[in-house]
């Protein structure tokens, strides 16, 4: 077993990849058992991977080794802090988990001033555009005006506390919403290509990596008969699924 594994790691990896790919794509037709199985494997693997990687990339190098090998004993207090999370399972002392939550929320909240400065100050700076300058064409000026109209109209849409009885504000907010929709359309359109290349990536994997493996396997009589069996089983499953679904539809059709 171990030897066989060692000899065929690449082959098995590619087959596992192909199987996973088909399992996930099957949900495009309908949610099914094959998908469900792989969904659970996926969650199991990622949880296990999380445990492993948390230990090997965070806890071991940053906590365990400095403490046990490096002699920095005070890291032991980190474990005490960490254990405070688990008090939430206690009815009486659940508040202790609140202490650690409070500490973390405070830390996160304290970062707000820096974050506001680092992310949004440059954006404010970039928004201060001259309407006219040396070397700017009329077209550039028009663009700047358009920029300000869209910026301020869209911002006015997000004023919550001013009653939109003021006609100018109401109009501006409505226009702002239209501008926002143009922006969202632009994002949508610009995203399509990136998403399509993701599928091309999977397709290339199936054709260029898995394809040759299938060609190799096809040479063996065992594989051929296995495929034939699989085909038969699939046909039967589809037949069963169909009759099963007819019954199900009548009960679930609440729409």
């Amino acid at each position: 077993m171990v030897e066989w594994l060692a000899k065929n790691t690449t082959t098995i990896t590619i087959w596992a990849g192909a199987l996973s790919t088909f399992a996930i794509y099957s949900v495009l037709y309908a949610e099914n058992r094959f998908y469900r199985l792989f969904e659970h494997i996926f969650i199991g693997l990622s949880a296990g991977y999380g445990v492993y990687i948390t230990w090997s990339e965070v806890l071991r190098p940053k906590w365990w080794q400095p403490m046990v090998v490096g002699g920095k004993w005070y890291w032991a207090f980190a474990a005490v802090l960490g254990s405070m999370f688990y008090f939430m399972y206690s009815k009486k002392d659940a508040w202790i988990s609140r202490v650690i939550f409070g500490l973390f929320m405070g830390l996160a909240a304290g970062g707000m001033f820096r974050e506001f400065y680092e992310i949004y100050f440059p954006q404010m700076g970039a928004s201060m555009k001259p309407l006219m300058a040396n070397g700017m064409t009329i077209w550039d000026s028009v663009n700047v005006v358009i920029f300000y109209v869209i910026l301020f109209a869209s911002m006015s849409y997000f004023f919550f506390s001013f009653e939109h009885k003021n006609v100018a504000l109401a109009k501006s907010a409505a226009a702002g919403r239209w501008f926002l929709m143009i922006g969202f359309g632009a994002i949508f359109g610009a995203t399509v290509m990136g998403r399509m290349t993701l599928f091309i990536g999977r397709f290339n994997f199936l054709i260029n990596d898995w394809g040759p493996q299938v060609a190799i396997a096809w040479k063996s009589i065992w594989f051929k008969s296995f495929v034939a069996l699989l085909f038969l089983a699939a046909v039967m499953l589809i037949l069963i699924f169909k009759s099963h679904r007819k019954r199900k539809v009548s009960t679930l059709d609440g729409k």
Partner: protein
Amino acid sequence: MAKILGPHHGWILAAYIVGAMVSGAIFLALLTTVPPRYRKPIVMVLTFLAGLFYSLEFLLPPEAWFFVKPNRNPLTDWRPFVGTLTQIVWSFALLLGVWNLFQIHGKAVVKRGPGWYNSAAFFVAFAAIVFAGFAKDMSRSTAPAQLYTILFKGFLTSLDATMFSLIAFYIVSAAYRAFRVRSLEAALMMSAAGIIMLALVPVGAVVTNWLPNTGFLSIFRLEKIGYWLLIGPNMAAQRAIAFGVAVGGLAMSLRIWLSLERGSFFDRQL
């Protein structure tokens, strides 16, 4: 002080670690005896103090008068330590989630309800990758590393990539269904998306290829319009959203920091 902090080795180190653990346990035990009416104020004060760290670290420039030594904000030196500490303590919380998964799937396996074998598959996958991962780092044999490759590269990354690539399909059905001229809003969104989709591919740009490449008319070439939409209106609209989100985020952080936040989680008796 420096002598206490160590580093220590051997038995002394073990004693220190055990001592730290025990004192930690005593501290926690003391916390359990705090009467309810002091609990909320304690959490509030700790939240405020924790918030002070990063705020002051940023808001007090090194040239402020009260930093005597050659212009340093002492909190800055503590940033890496606080960062590491946060990461470590946070890592301990991971098991909260894993524990919940174990509970739900364990129950399913024990009860043998419908689909229990899926939950069994969860446990197998979990155990396999944890075993392969740790065994790979500890043993000299290559077998665990190969098992790890199969699980990680074969399954996990393929599942990740395929799940991600599902969007290629969903984006088609979403565009097809949503982009109907029902309202001005839908029409605007549709037109912007359509123009940019055409503009980004050479085949689409053929539509306006008859226009000159320079001069006034060139601005009506599709790729120019698409480009303009992206850096013009799109950027302005995104920036408007960004400013709103910025102020909203600042306000919420402020409320949490000063324990002014309201809502079930914050109003609860402790």
